[in-house]
């Protein structure tokens, strides 16, 4: 399509609405004289109908295309908008975003006030050196306003700690402080959190709070920025910048910070910019701070239409097998409850249920079901099996008020650390004859079996390996059966293991 395309960022507009930006040479591929680039996946469902497609450089001096284009068999104009008709654009990680360009002034003002409130709390309440960073800093320095194509606000704070464990502990402390104000705070990794701030137009603004630090001479700033940057020289003591007429704390030399983040050509607008992070530093950050949330997005897709519609609503055959073994009215913790099909069925049989999952989408689905049915015997709680402190926070309450533990399809989705936490929890709380009931897709020696569903998110697990892990944690497999069963969607699975595990206590 774009023969002889320039190697500068190109902006794509549909009927004068900015929708996307890319850079030939970095994105897409060249085939002879022809440059090809796919429409972003997030845009494709909207590509139906006719629109005037304009592809041009930021300053409009070079226009490669400006004409009507018809997509698919759709009638009318292409509408790249949300349910309320607000225009979308594609952000730098390929997601749908509502850009500041399209945000009304009063809402923009609200977002700035929210940013100030968060910064104030970080500096005064938490005592950390917090500053405006990334797109907001770039907009402030380059033009004094927010960048039209940005869609969120990023804040950073510099910590003088040099051991990741201390940096993580400080991030926990900050999260606790912000939560104490009843703010909605999400943990994205052990080194960054996000404040979700409701705006008056019904939208939720995301204010990211990233830690920055220096370890062994390398400067790191979440997301994945890492490299040579002298914080003592260019960051501290903090200075200020003016954004939309409001003063914000900023790095002492903001230009140096922008050059570190975006490279020496940071002054040239590039809405489709992509970071070029050193993979060595990224691997360190992954090891120190990440690894417990990587599967959150794909699991969220499972718990939303259309995938969730494949999960039957009645009880699984495993739940029906377990229930008679529980004892009348005995409480149960459903670990990785998913849609809650078994949790709500147990409740219907008279069992108080604590239904846990690490997926917010799963919890939202269960909450909606609980609200619709009024089933108040089901209590919902987020539980990330990889997060030891979350698991340990359940030990006290469950040791006092014993529950059976129930986990269908969970084992195949856990890594070693999460299984260790699960077995540690079970060993601590199953003290009065309660059991841990497990069902999972099993491996069978020398037999090739199909991969279990949902593909890529779960795998077959060796029951004998699990038995060894259980015994290592002091548990006893009281029952094990391997046979044909069903997967998460009740589709046939040729090898499913059922286990009842107990922890004998003197």
């Amino acid at each position, binding site marked *: 399509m774009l023969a002889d395309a320039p190697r500068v960022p190109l902006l794509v507009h549909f009927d004068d609405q900015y929708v996307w930006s890319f850079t030939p040479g970095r994105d897409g591929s060249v085939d002879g004289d022809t440059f090809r680039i796919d429409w972003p996946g997030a845009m494709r469902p909207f590509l139906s109908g006719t629109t005037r497609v304009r592809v041009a450089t930021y300053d409009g001096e070079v226009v490669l295309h400006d004409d009507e284009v018809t997509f698919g068999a759709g009638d009318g104009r292409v509408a790249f908008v949300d349910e309320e008709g607000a225009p979308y654009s594609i952000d730098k990680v390929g997601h749908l975003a509502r850009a500041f360009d399209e945000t009304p002034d009063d809402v923009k003002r609200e977002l700035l006030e929210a940013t100030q409130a968060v910064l104030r709390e970080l500096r005064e309440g938490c005592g950390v050196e917090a500053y405006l960073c990334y797109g907001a800093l770039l907009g402030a320095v380059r033009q004094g306003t927010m960048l039209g194509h940005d869609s969120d606000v990023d804040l950073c704070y510099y910590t003088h700690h040099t051991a990741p464990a201390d940096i993580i502990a400080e991030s926990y402390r900050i999260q606790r402080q912000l939560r*104490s104000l009843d703010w909605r705070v999400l943990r994205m990794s052990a080194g960054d959190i996000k404040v979700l701030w409701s705006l008056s137009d019904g939208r939720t603004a995301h204010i990211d709070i990233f830690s920055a630090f220096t370890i062994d001479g390398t400067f790191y700033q979440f997301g994945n920025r890492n490299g040579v940057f002298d914080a003592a020289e260019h960051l501290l003591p903090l200075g200020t910048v003016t954004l939309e007429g409001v003063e914000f704390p900023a790095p002492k030399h903001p230009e140096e910070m922008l050059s570190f983040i975006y490279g020496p050509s940071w002054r040239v607008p590039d809405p489709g910019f992509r970071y070029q992070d050193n993979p060595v530093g990224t691997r360190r950050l992954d090891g120190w701070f990440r690894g417990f949330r990587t599967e959150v997005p794909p699991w969220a897709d499972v718990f939303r239409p259309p995938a969730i519609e494949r999960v039957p609503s009645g009880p699984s055959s495993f739940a029906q097998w377990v229930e008679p073994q529980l004892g009348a009215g005995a409480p149960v913790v459903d670990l990785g409850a998913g849609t809650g099909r078994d949790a709500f069925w147990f409740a219907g049989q008279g069992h108080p249920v604590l239904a846990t999952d690490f997926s917010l989408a799963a919890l939202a689905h269960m909450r909606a079901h609980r609200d619709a049915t009024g089933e108040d015997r089901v209590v919902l709680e987020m539980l990330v099996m990889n997060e030891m402190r979350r698991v340990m926070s359940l030990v006290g309450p469950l040791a006092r008020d014993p529950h059976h533990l129930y986990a269908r399809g969970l084992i195949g989705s856990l890594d070693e650390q999460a299984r260790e936490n699960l077995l540690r929890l079970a060993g601590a709380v199953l003290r009065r004859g309660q059991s841990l009931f497990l069902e999972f897709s099993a491996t069978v020696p020398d037999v090739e079996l199909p991969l279990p569903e949902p593909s890529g998110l779960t795998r077959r697990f060796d029951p004998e390996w699990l038995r060894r892990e259980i015994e290592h944690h002091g548990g006893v497999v009281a029952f094990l059966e391997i046979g044909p069963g069903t997967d998460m969607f009740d589709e046939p699975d040729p090898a499913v293991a059922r286990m009842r595990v107990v922890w004998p206590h003197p």
Partner: protein
Amino acid sequence: MASARAAKTKDLARRVRDRVRTSSVFDRSLRGRVLRLERELEADRQLHRKIAELSDVVAELLIPIQDRDEERVTEVLSQYRKSI
């Protein structure tokens, strides 16, 4: 269908690779030793989060629980779970 086949091929490739990598010849090779070191380093990096989580539990939960004030313990436990 195609994605299931691709996943199956990937799974097979992973198993072949794992078998090669668990052989004693590979383990003694330089590549094997570097891989082992990287794995061990990675495990050490992950200890940082474990230490931070344990310190958090000790500071926020165990110390208040030493007070043996039943009402306060229940309150602390509930607040802790909300704050993380």
